[in-house]
């Protein structure tokens, strides 16, 4: 295993974790619509309990994504989190609200009332995906920072953010917002498909299907717009000697030079579309839509992130100072650490296996009002 291989490998893992996180944000998508999908208290309880059995996986994937990024590309961690301070803080803030909301919303004595906690879920349901998408947008559009390792010796900071907005300026670029909204719509699409699969209540399924008719096309439009923009735009490329130059159609070139990635990307997109079509137009088997769309999302997002980092591309371009742009080689951990963590990563299939087992065991039958009435094991 060469150093170069390990860098690519870890970018793949970080991309995969990011993609799993986006897929698991079906929890957020469903929560965003909890008041629209559920008209009665019974129905809302069903919805909350349905996503409530999965939220910790989403949360954990986010935390692990952060940890893995830190371990493998610490300069990104240092630059982006310390620089785009507000975007990340607001994202975390929304996840803090969510973490207590499930457990507290229906408990006596919860101080703020059920509705407040439901709104926590809605806030996280919208802002979680929106901020994630906006932040990831900057992987393609670039950000405002300068890096100087020497400045640490002068008692200064290794990276300076050149915008006083500290991350919020990302909103000023419509393409970041486009990706943000796109992720919101994707989360909602997945959330609705999940609810159709996991909740056994005809009125909710009907509403979910109607919602899907709006959310899915909006997602597709936003997605095509963003992908179109990325493929037409220039990118920051790393030369043999390590210098960074701007290359026209960089991302399009990446696809052409990495045909397997491009093919997987297409397969991913098709799977998402199949999922939507099954959910919308196959009334006898609408439950099956979710897994198509989920698998498709993982493939699509992984390959999109590979597009941003592989093939000598700067995955975190700086337009304040081109030379500061982050790519895999200049931001990664040492070879020793990447190799050590490679061995640690071999546990991941085992982790995925027990998650899959637990998921199957718990979701054999969809959740229903009858079940909730009989059991104390609920939120």
């Amino acid at each position: 295993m060469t150093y170069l291989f390990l860098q690519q490998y870890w970018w793949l893992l970080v991309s995969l974790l990011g993609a799993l996180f986006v897929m698991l944000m079906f929890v957020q998508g469903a929560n965003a619509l909890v008041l629209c999908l559920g008209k009665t208290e019974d129905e809302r309880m069903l919805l909350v309990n349905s996503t409530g059995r999965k939220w910790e996986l989403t949360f954990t994937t986010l935390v692990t994504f952060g940890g893995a990024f830190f371990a493998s590309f610490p300069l990104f961690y240092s630059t982006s989190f310390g620089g785009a301070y507000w975007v990340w803080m607001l994202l975390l803030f929304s996840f803090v609200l969510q973490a207590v909301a499930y457990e507290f919303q229906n408990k006596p004595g919860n101080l703020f009332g059920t509705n407040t906690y439901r709104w926590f879920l809605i806030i996280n349901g919208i802002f979680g995906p929106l901020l994630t998408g906006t932040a990831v947008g900057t992987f393609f559009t670039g950000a405002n920072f300068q890096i100087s390792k020497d400045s640490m010796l002068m008692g200064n900071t290794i990276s300076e953010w050149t915008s006083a907005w500290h991350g919020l300026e990302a909103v000023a670029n419509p393409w970041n917002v486009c990706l943000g909204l796109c992720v919101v719509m994707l989360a909602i699409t997945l959330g609705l498909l999940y609810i159709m699969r996991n909740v056994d209540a005809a009125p909710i399924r009907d509403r979910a299907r109607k919602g899907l008719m709006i959310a899915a096309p909006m997602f597709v439009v936003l997605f095509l717009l963003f992908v179109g923009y990325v493929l037409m735009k220039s990118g920051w490329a790393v030369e043999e000697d390590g210098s960074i130059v701007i290359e026209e159609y960089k991302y399009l070139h990446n696809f052409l030079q990495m045909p397997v990635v491009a093919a997987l990307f297409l397969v991913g997109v098709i799977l998402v579309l199949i999922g939507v079509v099954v959910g919308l137009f196959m009334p006898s088997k609408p439950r099956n839509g979710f897994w198509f769309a989920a698998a498709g999302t993982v493939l699509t997002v992984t390959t999109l992130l590979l597009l941003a980092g592989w093939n000598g591309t700067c995955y975190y371009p700086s337009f304040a100072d081109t030379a500061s742009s982050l790519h895999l080689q200049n931001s990664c951990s040492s070879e020793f650490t990447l190799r050590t963590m490679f061995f640690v990563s071999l546990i991941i299939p085992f982790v995925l296996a027990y998650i899959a087992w637990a998921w199957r065991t718990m979701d054999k039958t969809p959740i229903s009002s009858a079940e909730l009435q009989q059991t104390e094991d609920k939120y």
Partner: protein
Amino acid sequence: MDLVLLSRIQFALTACYHWLFVPLTLGLGVVMSVMETIYVVRGDEAWRRIARFWQKLFGINFAIGVATGIILEFEFGTNFSNYSWFVGDIFGAPLAIEGILAFFMEATFIAIMFFGWEKVSKRTHLMATWLTAIGTMISAWWILVANSWMQHPVGMEFNPDTVRNEMMDFFTVAFQPTAVIKFVHSVCSGWMTGAMFVVAVSAWFLIKGRNQEMAKKSIMVASIVGIIGTAFCMFAGDKHGVDIAKTQPMKLAAAEGLQQGSNEAAFSFVPGIEVPHMLSFLATHDWNGYVWGINDLKEEGEKQIAEGKMALEAFRTYRENRETNDSVAQAALATFNEHKQYFGYGYLDSADELVPNVWLCYWCFRLMIGCGCIVALCFVLGIILGWKDWLEKYRWILVLFLIGLPCVYIAGQCGWIFTEVGRQPWAIQGLLPVKAAVSSVSAGSVLTTIIIFATLFTALLFAEVRIMLRAIREHNDK
């Protein structure tokens, strides 16, 4: 206020809040797992109800522990970006491993534990409960490996070309004695917290004359878990003292307010009450062992700072010349290597900076031990009274159990305040001072996030305590 102080306050705030919930998770996890095991072995429905009651409280506490934890991980990046680069090569690994090994385990099996009573077999459910509890401890292992490394950095080498420390030996980082000691000490203090919580809540039931059978059984299990936790906690605490005397002498000197080093250092219980030679013994396991004083360490510090400045200067010369003038660069690098051990000291301006807040260290250390002793006494009494079935006979002892609950929290908080404040001015002992570790964000931004988190966490804490109290008050074991 200045950025460094604010960044510290924010981290301290989130860490203290987090540690309100984590020890209960660690301890209650074990207690409830033991209870469920008794249920599965004996098939007695009473134990099933008992286990489920404590699991319900575990769930309420777990949620807010998770909520406060996510901020901490990301704060290394958001507020300490120099730190993240300077030691990220070592420090990121345990955080990633914690996620992969522990968090998924907790997240997966906690769902089975809560919602799976009717979906999986008894034994599978028991396994899920234990795996949840074990997951919390694996998580503690890796985060304490990370913290221990900040107290005692090992297994790395400074790379002058990347301007950071790089990992050389993973096993030294992951299994160094400091980490083992810290793990045992912290996790067992968590067992004490969980056990004390169960004993106190049960005592309240007994005082009120409700759920007596459940309360008595719970006190028995919890006291045993608690006393085991206490024994290991004390044992590790003793080792910890010896370890600190070697690796962080200033922290020890500050904890004792010891100005001059001595071979016959006395331990003061409170100002004025001292036992001669006892500190020497505690710190070195030798009645005449030498313990460093603050003034001696400051004298040493002067030299270290001078060397550190030379290292820093040589390193600047190296960086400036490494592409243009190789001979100058190599000479500078040689000078740097000679003094690089004290590199971090170069950031300090005077030896006074090396002294942490003595008052805080001194009192936190004593409060930790004092409160810990009260808690230990509760467990001993719990076992004796439970064994003899005298629990309802001595009402004042039940009241003592109630007092034990705030004590165990004070002990835990004070322990962490002591260990973190005592490390100051360092973010990583001897390697990087906090003032050179922070991000370049405005003080105003950090102040704003402090206010947001302080408000939010306080509000959620109130909600959590109220929910907890209601759940306890309304519990009817039948």
